[in-house]
């Protein structure tokens, strides 16, 4: 197990600050929140927000690798929050349409002589 510390050393020395990853994660979070993820998927939204904050802290500390990992995880949390939001909307649409159909059926049954 001598490879891991060596790797870490090399990575820290040669990794530039993940400016692009941070921007992508921030954009994903903004997109998710615009879709209403704070209400539909509050846990994932909060986690994405927290990871992005920690990624910025790490970047400010000069820990590029940690910043990159947190940014990538934060991006996926944001994507998951938005996906869960969309899925919740789709499930609601199923319920709404089925309820409308039930009402329509009831109406027809009442009108039938």
């Amino acid at each position, binding site marked *: 197990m001598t490879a891991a510390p060596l*790797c*870490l050393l090399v990575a820290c020395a040669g990794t530039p600050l993940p400016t692009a990853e941070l921007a992508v994660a921030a954009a994903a979070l903004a997109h998710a929140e615009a879709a209403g993820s704070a209400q539909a998927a509050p846990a994932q939204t909060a986690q994405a927000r927290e990871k992005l904050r920690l990624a910025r802290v790490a970047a400010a500390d000069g820990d590029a690798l940690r910043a990159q990992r947190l940014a990538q995880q934060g991006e*996926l949390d944001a994507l998951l929050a938005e996906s*869960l939001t969309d*899925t919740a909307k789709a499930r609601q*649409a199923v319920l709404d349409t089925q309820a409308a159909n039930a009402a329509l059926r009831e109406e027809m049954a009442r009108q039938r002589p």
Partner: protein
Amino acid sequence: MQTPRSTPHARGLPAARAQAVAVPRAAHLGRTGLVWGALALAALVACSTPPTPHPRLAAAQDDWRQLQAAVPPAATVAPAGPEWREAEVALARATAAEAAAADPDELEHLATLAQQRVALARSALTRRVAEADVAQAQQTRDQLRLAARTAEADRAQRQAQTAQRETSQAQREAQAAQRDTQAALRSADRAQRQASQAEGRAERLAEDWKALNARQTERGMVLTIGDVLFDSNHAELKPGPARSIDKLAVYLKAHPQHHALIEGFTDSQGSEAANQALSARRASAVMDWLVGQGVAADRLGARGYGEAFPLAGNDSAGGRQMNRRVEIVLSEDSRPVAPR
């Protein structure tokens, strides 16, 4: 730079790790031309690591297996989307990292990413199922609306047909009532006309008989024509104005149902046989004349009775004149008159 995404940037010793991480990807892509030395190194490192599974990665792999089992078998939705492939790739990377005994932080990071990718795939599958359900429910809704509209139209048509049937029924009844009324009116009219016609016929008949100076007897109406028609001892009709016989011809033609028997009579002067013959000839002369006027012969009959059936005594000139005569008996119905 240890993530597979940045593999091209790996240099020196980390290259071995990078290659090791790349093994599943390469296998996944079907590429086999890898550096065998790197593989051997990776295997060596793996073998030297105690086989304690990474808890987060194990959780991610478990999630993934559960998700595979959750895919509807009927394949109403295609589970494999971009999320599915991303999850497969992320899991492969983390598994390879574990096999290569990667740096714990890196392995923790890759396991976290794999877990998130699996969660994304799960959400995507759930969403696709929901979208398919929505599409089906909308299709059902369209069918229901169509059925509702059809039922509505059918109902309206039935109502219209019922109304029309009732209207036509009422019209037919009204027409029938009108026809009945008209028929009754016509019937009454006809009865009245027939009554008035019968009355008129009876009146005309009575007038005609009066004009003929006929008298009613048991045998029928009898018209007596005196000796003015013939010269003495002759049987030829004499011409003359306003004769009763002319009126008789008109009457017989106007009433074709009546029959007539013409009877000739004489006084008692001369021989009985001669008188009989003379009276017969005179009756026949009258009958021939009537036939000549257009009266059918089968309605007529002629007989001579000579001196028989005198109306008065033959001992005076006045009596003898009354006995010289022709009598015409008219039937009241369509049967011939019986002779005396």
